């Protein structure tokens, strides 16, 4: 039963208030893109056992989508940040690196 801090409304939200939204920072490919790029955008997932950047919606709260860095092996949360970040926020990256020195970084 996760608790994630909603970076918009400031609530430490219970998992039952939240809706999961899968991997974060996917780049959308639309018309004109190659079959490979479109397939990767739609389906190829990092699905790491470890540090994962992911989307959540505070569905039964303020309704905002936000992003979280979380370890899928321990459920440790390194931080949450607003959805308007095309890549992991530097503060979040630093927080992960502090906790997971061997982490290879977001790719």
């Amino acid at each position, binding site marked *: *039963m*996760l608790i994630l801090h909603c970076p918009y409304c400031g609530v430490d939200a219970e*998992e*039952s208030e939240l*809706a*999961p939204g*899968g*991997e974060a920072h996917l780049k959308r490919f639309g018309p004109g893109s190659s*079959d*490979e790029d479109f*397939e*990767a955008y*739609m*389906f*190829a*997932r*990092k*699905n*790491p*056992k470890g540090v*994962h950047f*992911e989307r959540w919606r505070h569905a039964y709260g303020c309704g905002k989508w936000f992003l979280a860095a979380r370890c*899928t*092996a*321990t*459920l440790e949360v390194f931080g949450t940040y607003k959805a308007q970040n095309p890549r992991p926020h530097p503060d979040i990256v630093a927080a992960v690196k502090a906790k997971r020195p061997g982490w290879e970084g977001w790719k």
Partner: protein
Amino acid sequence: MGMRRYSMFAVAREALRFHAGWERAWKSPEPKSHYDVIVVGAGGHGLATAYYLGKVHGIRNVAVIEKGWLGGGNTGRNTTIIRSNYLQDPSAAIYEKARSLYEDLSQDLNYNVMFSPRGLLMLAQSEHERRGYQRTVYANNLQGIETEWITPQKVKELVPILNIEGPRYPVLGALYQERGGTARHDAVAWGYARGCSAMGMDIIQQCEVTGVRTEGGKVVGIDTTKGAIGCSKLAMVVAGHSSVLAEMAGFRLPIESMALQAWVSEPIKPAIDVVVMANLVHGYMSQSDKGELVIGGGTDGFNNYTQRGSWHHVEETTRALVETFPIISRLKMLRQWGGIVDMTGDRSPILSKTPVENIFVNCGWGTGGFKSIPGSGWAMAELVAKGEPGPLAAEFGLIRFREGRFIDESVAAGVAH
């Protein structure tokens, strides 16, 4: 090679000497330097793959590598339901192949897997579900799968403890597969393992894969915690950790790992003789031979490798089942647990060649893994042996995600007005 046959007479004979003469069900060898085929993952699917490689294709220089103990992943933590009442042709074909192999599996393996074709019901509790299941019955009849649509009254006869009257979601009928049912999950893994071992295959437990070796785009072996092992072909059959292994081989899969929970009640005398699935309210239930009510629901929905689930899903599903079977309210939950399932982009499995030559992948069974074990092993063995998929696996290749040729079983995905 060969194995001592199990029978009532063998047990009686052994009884005279306090069962001192039983031999190991499977051997526990050290790895050799090279195998024709290495199967990674000694769960049901991996062991069945190896078994049919030997039995059907005569390939016996095979190792099955397991990081933990055989059958210790999802094979040993599911709700043991077996059914083949799928809608789409490719799914129906492979699940029915599995179900029909289950019919004779105890005799084939000489290991009682307790296949119990006790019947399986999927309740229709909305007009939308009713139409979807009636459609499935017609599809199944053309696919050679025996299912029927039954009335609420017949549902009540089959399951007297079922509340068909609602009040919220009255039962409008059900999709019934008389030869669906359950089996003893551990026994499936153990029986296959014994069969593989008897054919001279090596089952190597407590051996974790740490790397995949390739040369010129072809697989040549793996690195493990027990050293490097060479192979001509590699079959990855590691539900829950498919993405991790694919990463080692340098490709990504359309898979996300999620927790799926199940729980059992304390044992009681026989209360329910069939398997009941109430999909609208997200719960299903059967009773084990030991007397426990075996209960499950849907996945938790976020990436998770912990084998632990979230409590609120337990509440939701338990509510659904208390509503469906009001007499269970005073029974008690004995144990809950979680497994990690592979969820693919279209919620159907992958049996496929990969970007690396001679690496084959079998994954993505989602919540349908146990019921498919024999069919999956059969189709995977054919794929590995021939290098190309046979008819059972043909539609389950990775290429479908590029072409948009999905196998979507969620007839309930649309929403009625």
